């Protein structure tokens, strides 16, 4: 039995979905690709003065959250990383936050 027979033709045409095939279990998972959370925000808006936006992409300890968790597209992730580093240099964001206990 080939794997291709299990694919629903409707999902094949849809650009937003993609297939993830696991060869270990011989089964097919169909997982929808998550949209970028910053798709409505222009690239120009991601800069070191926009502290409200940058704060969303930091952990509690002040580290940058990777894009595999946030699903931000690659161009914007690079812009975020650059902006956070600039803001840290100017004392707008602290580079590290210590635990309270």
């Amino acid at each position, binding site marked *: 039995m080939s794997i291709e027979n299990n694919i629903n033709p409707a999902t094949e045409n849809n650009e937003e979905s993609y297939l993830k095939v696991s060869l270990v279990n011989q089964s097919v998972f169909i997982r929808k690709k998550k949209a970028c959370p910053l798709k409505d925000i222009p690239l120009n808006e991601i800069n070191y*003065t926009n502290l409200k936006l940058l704060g969303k992409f930091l952990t509690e300890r002040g580290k940058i959250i990777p894009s595999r968790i946030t699903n931000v597209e690659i161009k914007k992730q690079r812009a975020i990383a650059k902006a956070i580093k600039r803001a840290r240099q100017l004392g707008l964001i602290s580079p590290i936050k210590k635990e309270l206990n």
Partner: protein
Amino acid sequence: MALYEAVFIARQDLTNEDVDALTNKFCKIITDGKGKIVNKEYWGLRSLAVKINKNSRGHYVMINIDANYPAVAELKRVIAYTEDVVRSAVFLVDKHHEETSLFVSSTAKEFKPNYSAKKQQGKYDLILEQFQFDS
């Protein structure tokens, strides 16, 4: 000609008049080097996230510059030996922003303490509130 953004942090015990005098001094270096000052912004007396040279607060000033590099290099050199400046940075940018989100007033003399509280919500604030990443 290229576009630059110069940001510097002045020491906390300077008065507002002193900060204006410093910015005018730096602007004159650019205009002497055949450059243009596009915009000036004062971000207020902000508290620093980390102590820099034993300072916990500082006056933030941003200058938008349209000039050739020799004038900017001269500005960097002068800032480096000015003792009233705690930290500074000059960035090369593609486009100047009309008004940044940290904007308080154009000069330190016109400083309004409660400006940021009265400020209206930004364009993209509603979108930003929607997502939250747990780590």
